[in-house]
C-alpha cells in the first residue's frame, strides 16, 4: 500500500507547534508515567508505558522524507489501539507532558492519511452529515422531545422543554443515543432541570455535543462539529452550554 508523501509532509508541518516539539524533545523515557496508565496497570508490558506512545510520532519527525507504510501502520495501532486519551499519565509525568495531546496529534496524522479506524470514520461521517453521529433527523429529535415532555408532565404538570428560546441561561445538549435509543435519559435530564428551576433551552439545529472528530484526531472535522454547537449557542445568546460527556 502506498501513501501520499505530500499530505504527510503538510500534516506534520501543521502539527509541529512549539508545544508539540517541546514535549517530544523533553520526554526522557523515565517511565514515571507507566503507573498512570490502566493499560500498563492491567498488563505491564513495555509497549504499554505511555511514553512509548509518542515514539511512533517522534520517529516520523526524525525520519522525515523516509517514512514507510509500516511506520504509519505502527503509529495508527499504537495511538488508536492502546490509549483512551484519559490524561491520567500526565499527572505522573515530572514534566507534565500532555501525552494525550501527542496521541491526538499522532491520530491526526493517521486521519489525514485516510487511516482512521472504520467504525470511528463512519460515525464521524454521520456526525458531519446529520449534525449527530447516529443520523437522527431534526424531526425525530423534536418528536422525541415532545414525547418525553408529555410523559414527564404526567408527574410534573408544569414541566417545560423550550426549543430555540433566545436569551436562556443554558443550552442543554445530549449524546445522540439519549435521543435514538434511550429516551428515558432525556426524560431524566428534563426532570432534573425542571425540578431545579433551571432557565434552559434546547436547540433544533445543534443538540449533540459529542465530538467524534476529537477522538479521531481529525481537527478540521472536530472544528466543524464544535462549530455547529458554538453557532447555535452564540445565536441563542446563552451564558453556558451544558455538555453531554
Amino acid at each position, binding site marked *: 500500500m502506498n501513501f501520499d508523501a505530500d499530505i504527510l509532509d503538510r500534516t506534520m508541518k501543521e502539527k509541529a507547534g512549539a508545544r508539540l516539539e517541546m514535549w517530544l524533545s523533553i520526554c526522557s523515557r523515565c517511565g514515571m508515567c507507566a503507573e498512570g496508565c*490502566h*493499560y500498563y*496497570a*492491567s*498488563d505491564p508490558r513495555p509497549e504499554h508505558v505511555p511514553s512509548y506512545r509518542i515514539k511512533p510520532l517522534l520517529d516520523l519527525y526524525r525520519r522525515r522524507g523516509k517514512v514507510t507504510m509500516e511506520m504509519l501502520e505502527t503509529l495508527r*495501532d499504537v495511538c*488508536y*489501539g*492502546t*490509549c*483512551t*486519551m*484519559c*490524561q*491520567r499519565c500526565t*499527572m505522573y509525568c515530572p514534566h507534565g507532558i500532555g501525552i*494525550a495531546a501527542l496521541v491526538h496529534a499522532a491520530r491526526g496524522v493517521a486521519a489525514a492519511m485516510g487511516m482512521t*479506524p472504520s*467504525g*470511528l470514520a463512519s*460515525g464521524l461521517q454521520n456526525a458531519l452529515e446529520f449534525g449527530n453521529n447516529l443520523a437522527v433527523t431534526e424531526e425525530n429529535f423534536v418528536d422525541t422531545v415532545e414525547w418525553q415532555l408529555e410523559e414527564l408532565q404526567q*408527574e*410534573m404538570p408544569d414541566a417545560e422543554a423550550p426549543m430555540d428560546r433566545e436569551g436562556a441561561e*443554558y443550552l442543554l445538549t445530549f*449524546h445522540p*443515543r*439519549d435521543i435514538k435509543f434511550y429516551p*428515558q*435519559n432525556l426524560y*431524566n*435530564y428534563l*426532570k*432534573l432541570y425542571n*425540578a*431545579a*428551576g*433551571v432557565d434552559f433551552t434546547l436547540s433544533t439545529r445543534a443538540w449533540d*455535543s*459529542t465530538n*467524534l472528530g*476529537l*477522538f*479521531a484526531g481529525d481537527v478540521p472535522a*472536530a*472544528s466543524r*462539529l*464544535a*462549530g455547529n*454547537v*458554538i453557532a447555535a*449557542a*452564540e445565536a441563542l*445568546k*446563552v*451564558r*453556558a*452550554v*451544558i*455538555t453531554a*460527556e
Partner: protein
Amino acid sequence: MKALGFEAPLWLKRTLGFEATPPIKVWADGLATGRLKLKKGFHTVPVTFQDSCNFIRNAGMYRQSRQLMAAVATDFREMHPAGNATYCCGNGGGQGLMPEYKKRKIAAMKAKAECIRATGASLVVVACHNCEDGIQETCKAYEVDAKIELFSAYLAEAIDLDEA
C-alpha cells in the same frame, strides 16, 4: 466537555461567547442553593462512582459529584484510587467504536475491575456515556457483580416532587 470546553477555542483560535459546563455543576449548584430538592438517603444499595476523565479529572467536578452522592446515598464506597487519580473506564477516546482493538481494551480494564470489586458495591454510578459502556464491559468481562446506572437517572429517581 473536552471538545467545547477545552479544545474548541484552540482549534478555532478565538474565545467563545459562552462557557461549557458539566451537568454535574448545574445539579450541584441546584443542591447548594436548595432549588433542587433530593430525598436524603433515598438510595440504600451499596454504591460507588466512576470518576470520568472529562467531568472529573479535566473539569474538576470531584467535590460536586460527592456532594450529590452524599445527598442521596446512604452507603457510598470510594474506589481506590478515586477522583482525579482513578483509572479510566477503558472506553475513552473512541475505544467503543474500534472493534479491531477491543481485545486490548478489555485486557486493560482489569485494573478498573479490581477497583470496583474491592468496594463491594453492587451499583456503579457513571456520569458519562462512554463510561457507561466501559464499566458495563469491565464488569461483564471480569465477572464483577454490579449494575451500572447513569448519574442523571440515579439523581432523577431521588427528586422530591412534593417539596418542589
